[in-house]
């Protein structure tokens, strides 16, 4: 009934809840307690850092996921991996994040975002360097007509030689318009310390939405309704570089609608555009990578 009203009544909107502050990830308790582990061996330093973002669509096949990463040269060279939609279930033994970290030889932090069945669902950051000061922010809640879910941002500081790189992993709601999307991500990106890497699944789909249910398809054939360039433009206005802006789609819906849902933004480093690995088929998204060159 609520969905029908959303379709029929143009006054419906995705009411966004209040923003929250970053909190220490370890302050979250119970099912939302994060997992943290250091890399078995850490790199000393580097000038150029490979960053990958990948929505792994639950990551059920951890071995297949690890294989896809380690056998794809651009991904195997990842120093920092931002993952969205990872899950942990108690019947599986070590969590999927733990097993993926072991397979990649990386440290990690996994922060449950919501309960999913008998387990949890959330983002994770993997790194070849030590992850310090892991923090979680509850993003403004979007009260959608259907499929509403809490969203968090996960951040950590990564010490690379003399530099401390701030890394923020985002996964935003799907059926938001650009203004709402900005309001949902803004608390996690606006005032971050430099240098900063922001990446994730921003769900920048190709439509303007009405009632967070009806995509304005006809207008999209005539004017630019794609949200990805608009979010890129917003990020440029707050001094982020947009190295993934020209890399093309990161998801193809049934081969009919191509969307650039995933992105990486940098501030305070030299960003070198990388690519989208469209031969990787372990998820509905394709992984995206860039290189970031740290200041001397």
């Amino acid at each position, binding site marked *: 009934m609520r969905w029908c009203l959303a379709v029929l009544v143009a006054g419906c909107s995705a009411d966004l809840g209040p923003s929250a502050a970053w909190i220490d990830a370890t302050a979250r308790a119970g099912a939302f307690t994060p997992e943290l582990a250091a890399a078995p061996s850490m790199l000393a330093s580097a000038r150029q850092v490979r960053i990958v973002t990948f929505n792994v669509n639950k990551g059920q096949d951890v071995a297949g996921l690890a294989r896809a990463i380690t056998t794809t040269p651009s991904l195997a060279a990842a120093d920092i991996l931002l993952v969205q939609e990872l899950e942990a279930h108690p019947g599986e033994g070590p969590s999927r994040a733990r097993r993926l970290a072991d397979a990649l030889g990386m440290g990690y932090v996994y922060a449950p975002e919501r309960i999913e069945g008998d387990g949890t669902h959330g983002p994770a950051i993997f790194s070849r360097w030590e992850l310090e000061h892991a923090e979680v922010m509850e993003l403004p809640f979007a009260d959608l007509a259907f499929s509403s879910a809490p969203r968090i941002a996960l951040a950590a500081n990564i010490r690379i030689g003399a530099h401390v790189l701030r890394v923020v992993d985002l996964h935003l709601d799907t059926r938001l318009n650009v*203004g709402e999307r900005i309001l949902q991500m803004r608390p996690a990106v606006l005032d971050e310390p430099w240098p900063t890497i922001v990446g994730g699944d921003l769900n920048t789909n190709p439509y303007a939405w009405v009632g967070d249910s009806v995509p304005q398809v*006809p207008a999209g*054939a005539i004017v630019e309704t794609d949200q990805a360039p608009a979010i890129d433009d917003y990020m440029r206005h707050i001094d982020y570089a947009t190295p993934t802006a020209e890399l093309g789609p990161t998801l193809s819906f049934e081969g009919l609608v191509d969307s650039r849902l995933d992105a990486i933004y940098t501030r305070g480093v030299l960003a070198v555009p990388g690519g989208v690995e469209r031969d990787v088929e372990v998820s509905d998204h394709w992984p995206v990578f860039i290189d970031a060159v740290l200041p001397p």
Partner: protein
Amino acid sequence: MRVLCLALVLVGASSAHADRTRSERRHAAYVELLGKGGLWGAGYDFAPWSRVALGVTGSAYVHEGERLLSLSPYVAVYPLGRGSHRAFVQLGPQLVRLDRMSPVPEWPGQTTSGLGAELCAGYELRTRLLVRAFAMTTIGKQGVAPWAGISIGVTL
């Protein structure tokens, strides 16, 4: 139940006036659900000949920080059908303007506008009541988009 009653009244009124010929009901005013405006629209058309009409549909709304305006003039032809029941095809340009208003001070928002074309095909019931159901495609520099809509209105 109220909707059903209203529909019965409208159909009844329509039937009562079905004796008037189609050629006498050359003007039509209607509202669209979905259709050319994406969500809704309002339009008018005039049929100078039995199988040809000229019209325009417009739509405007502000929703969730986005303002979408569209204007779609068209030529309609009725290649099939007789009397009150006909198949129609509409073809015409569409002008669209999208304003994305900024909710924050650090971003100015965005405005884009463009011109494309629309092709609609469907069924029309035209008595005193006008009902259309159609499939359509919009063609523009961003691509081709399928869509559908229904129109309900009155004829004069």
